[in-house]
Structures are given as structure tokens and as C-alpha cells.
């Protein structure tokens, strides 16, 4: 849960900071276009801004990599839980388990499966959002 919280917080911070940095670049371009700023000052500020954007993008890329790795991990986890569920069904059908134990275990595994799928969905959505920022910044 902590791991989930940590990437989420990083993701939100980085998304916000990147959006702001892109908006600042737009504002800078606007000043230049309106002749409100000289080229040397514009270039000086742009340099700083590009450095900031590059740093944030590096951070974002590393975050996206971690998130993709986490998705793979969760996918494997889902596969395992599904195998457990199938094995549970077989045990129940083969009367190796009584109904109460079967129901209890199935409920636990299903809850785990749902939580894992929900986390995977959240990360996938976040990745889509990251790609969307990429497209809108170009």
C-alpha cells in the first residue's frame, strides 16, 4: 500500500510540475512573441526552463519505467491468484475442502485479485496520463 502511495504521490507531483513547466515555457514564448522580452533574456530563461523540463522528464521516464515494472509484477500476481483460485475450485469439487473453508479462501483470493486489478488499472491510467502530457507538450 505504501509502495502504491509513493508512486502515486511522485506521479502527481511530477505531472503537476511538468504541466507548470510547459505552461511557463508557453508564457515565455508569448512574452517573446509580444516583444515584451529581449532575445538574450529569453534565451537565458529558456535555458533554465529547458534544464528544469529535462530534469523532470528524466524523473518522469524513470517513474514510468518503475510503473511498467510494477504492472508486470501485478500481472504475474494476478496470474498466480487465478491459478490459486482454479486449484481451490478443484479441491472443492474433489471434496478436499469443506464449503466453509472453500468460501473463506475464495473470498480472500477474490479480494486480493480485485485489489491487484484495481492497482494495475490505476497505474495503467497514470501511464496513459503521462503519455497524454507528452503529446500535449509537443
Amino acid at each position, binding site marked *: 500500500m505504501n509502495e502504491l502511495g509513493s508512486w502515486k504521490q511522485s506521479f502527481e507531483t511530477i505531472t503537476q510540475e511538468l504541466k*507548470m513547466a510547459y*505552461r*511557463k515555457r*508557453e*508564457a*515565455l514564448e*508569448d*512574452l517573446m512573441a*509580444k516583444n*515584451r*522580452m*529581449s532575445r*538574450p*533574456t529569453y534565451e*537565458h*530563461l529558456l535555458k*533554465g*526552463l529547458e534544464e528544469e523540463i529535462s530534469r523532470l522528464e528524466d524523473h518522469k521516464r524513470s517513474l514510468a519505467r518503475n510503473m511498467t515494472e510494477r504492472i508486470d509484477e501485478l500481472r504475474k500476481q494476478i496470474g498466480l491468484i487465478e491459478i490459486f483460485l482454479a486449484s481451490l475450485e478443484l479441491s472443492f469439487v474433489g471434496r478436499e475442502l469443506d464449503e466453509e473453508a472453500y468460501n473463506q479462501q475464495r473470498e480472500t483470493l477474490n479480494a486480493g485479485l480485485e485489489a491487484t486489478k484495481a492497482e494495475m488499472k490505476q497505474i495503467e491510467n497514470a501511464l496513459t496520463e503521462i503519455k497524454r502530457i507528452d503529446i500535449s507538450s509537443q
Partner: protein
Amino acid sequence: MQADTQKNIILELENIGCLKRIRLEFKPGVNVIRAPNASGKTTIIRGFSYMFSDKIPPSHVLALDELNGRIRVHYNGRVYEKILRRTPSGEVIAQGEMLPFADPRAFDACVALAETGVVHRITGGSAFFRKYLEDLSYGNYYSAIINASQELINEYSRRLSGPIFRNFEALPLLLTELTDLHMRREQAQQKIEEAKSSHEAKLRELRSEIESKSASLSIEEARLSQLSRNLSLEKERENQLQELLRMTEENSKIAISIREGISSSKEKQEKINSEINKQRRIVEKIKSDLEALRESLRREERLGPRELDELEKDLENIKKRIILKEEEIQRAERFPPDDKDYPGRLVVDVRSEILRKIEWLEKVTGYFQEKYMRRMTSARRRFNENIARAFRELGLTGFGNIFLDQNFILHIMRNGNIRQPIETLSASEKLTISLILMLAAKETFLPDFPLFIVDELTLSYDPERFWRITNYIKRRVPYVIVTSLNSSLKGEIEVIHKP
């Protein structure tokens, strides 16, 4: 004989201090200037030392009532002379030649004057010794360059922390504020659009409600008409039955049946009337609702979106703030036209010029700091070696080691490596160490200077040790001059030569 005479140094002083005219001859070896108290021994040493450099002598070098003076030295078959003149403002100027071995550092390394504080040198602490070795090794030139560079760096750094540069440094922040205003402008525009479209939707809703109410009204009015027609028909039926009743016998069965018919018709009429009344109320209600809806529509159309004014005011306000922020940014990038150093120039250009200068000065400082460190380390090492040699060769037992550490603090170690605080040394020991330090300085920095002068240090000194040191100096320096108090001489000054 001629060659021997040529080796002698003759010093002639004229109107120097209290001395009207004096001629002294110094031979290779030890020369003792003997004179009674206050007869001018130190004046002779000072007068002689003016020939070691082109330093401007102080105004008291000449006797108070004298306008001119002269220092003349016969050395190696040549005469070197300095003429001193008092200017109308009272200052003294000097013209003439220095000795061929002149060196301005000689006064500090080769002239041990009691009044200039030979002893004070060893009790002067690290600041003194650092400065002493800096001056003698010319490390002071490096430190002057380092200090000047540092001062310039400080000056440029001070400039960079001035209000105009601070405003310029705040440009990224101003850009963030501007971006924030842009975002707020977009939000305000979006709110206006939303308000407009919500108002349009409301109008559409009202129009559709009116349409639907109008349709209901038509239906309900048609129903009312139908009910009115039904009532008329029923009334007509009743009238026909009444007519029929009048033509029928009163108690006949037909009459009874007609009366029942009339009664039923009246009941029907009552019912229809009641329905008509109800229907009228419905129609009235619909009409009133319709009127209310039309009124609402008219009002909405007249007033437009409720918060639009407020929102548009907000938007205008944000737009004004954007303009002000843009102007602030524009101002922050340039020096004002009346700036005394950089009128109208771009701060970014001036800033990078200054940063380039600072970078260059830092390189200069670094380069000279390294040179200074090397020179000072080497000077300290050689100085320490010469001190050690002097102690060793003089056979001064009791002292193990005397040296300056890397912080230029003088350490005096007794035998057995016991540290002796300088303050606890006897006066005689302080003098011994002082003389040896000075001799070490001379040997380190002025090895070819042919003179070593010791002024009246014998007063509080062990004579045996003094002569041991003097003889040691004699072996290392061609001419040793020592002044000595002799109260038995009546105002005369004599030089006794000890080869």
C-alpha cells in the same frame, strides 16, 4: 695596503639627527661603535640603513634647524652619496645613489635595532612571522594580488547582489506568477463560457416548458369547452323533459319517469358544473404557470447569465494584472536609462560579463594562492633549516629545536622535546633567539648582503654568549657592526675593529 683600504667601508654623515659631521671606517670583521649614552649610535645605524633602499626618510632624519644633509659611503673603490633636503612644507626628500647591494628588506633582516623590537619579533605571534616571511620572501606581492583579486571579486559579488540583479534573479518567479495568471485567465474564460451555456440551457428549458404548458393548456381548454357543451346539452335535455312534463298528466307513470329524468339531468348538470369549475381551475392554474414561465423567460432573456458581470469583471482584472506583470518582467530585464554604471543595458549581458570576470579573478586568485603557498612553505622550510643550523653550530645547549609550524607559530623546544612558552624565556634567551632568527632570515633571503648590524643589545645580555654569537655571525657575514655603550668616552664616537 691599498687593496686592504679598498675593502674598508667608510661612512660619512652630515647633519643627520644630532650628528653634525662624522666619519667612520668599518673593516672586514667585527666593528664595535663605542660611544656614551645619547651620542648618536642609533642615528649612525639609521643613517647607514637609508643607503640600503630608496625609501623616503622621515622628516626627523635632519636636525630640526638643518635644511640639508648628506650620507656618503665609500665602498669597493666607489663613493655612493645621498643628499637630503628639507622642502618648504617640512618634508625631507632624498636624491642620490643606493649602495650596490642595497635591498629594502635588509633593514628587517640585517639590522637588529633594539628600538625596532628585535625581541618583539619572537613574542609577536603567528601574524608577525607570517608577515615577516611574506615581506622577506616577496610572498607579499602574491598576497597583494590575491587580496586585490579577492576585493574585486567581493566588489563584483556586491554588485550582483544589488536590487537590479535581485529583480533579474526573480524573473523565473515572475514568470511563474505570469503563468499562474494565464491559468487563472483561462479558468475565468471557461467559467464565463460555462455560465453562458448554462444560461442558454436554462432558456431552452424555459421555452420547452412554455411549449409543453401551452400544449397542456390547449388540451385542458378543449376539455373545458367539451364540458360546457355537455352542460348545454344536458340543460336542453332538462328543458325538453320539463316541456314534456307539462303536457303529461301529473300522477301518471310517465310523469313520474319524466320527473326522475329531470332529477337525473339536474344531477348530471351539477356534476358537469363541478367538473367545469375544476377544469376552469386547472386551466387558470396552467395559464398562471404559463404566464410565470413567460415572465421567467422574459426576465432571463433581459438579464442574461446571473454571474456573468462578476465573471467578466474578474477576467478583466486578471487581464490587467497580466499586463502589469508583463511590464514588471520587462522592467526587470534592463537597467534604468539613468543608471550610472550600465544605463539601459540588459541585465543578462552585464551579469554574464561580471560572472566571467569573477570566474577569471577566481582563477587568478587560485593560481597565486598556490604560488603563495609554495613560496611561503619553501621560505618557512629554509628559514627553519637555517635556525637549526645556527643553533647546532653555535653549540647552544639547552634548546632542542626552534621552528615555525605551518601556521607560522614559533615553537621553542627544550631538550627532551619539552615545549617552552616564549613568555617564560629569560631576557638573555629572548635576545639569543631573536638574533638567531634574524640571522636565519638574512641567510635565507639575503645571503649576499655583506652587513649585519646589532645595535646596543649587550645591555641586558650575557657578554660571553653575545661574543660567541657575534663571532659566529662574523664567520658568515663580511662586515659586522655592533654598537656599544661606553660612558667613559666624553662625547666621542670610536670604532674598534676586531678582525
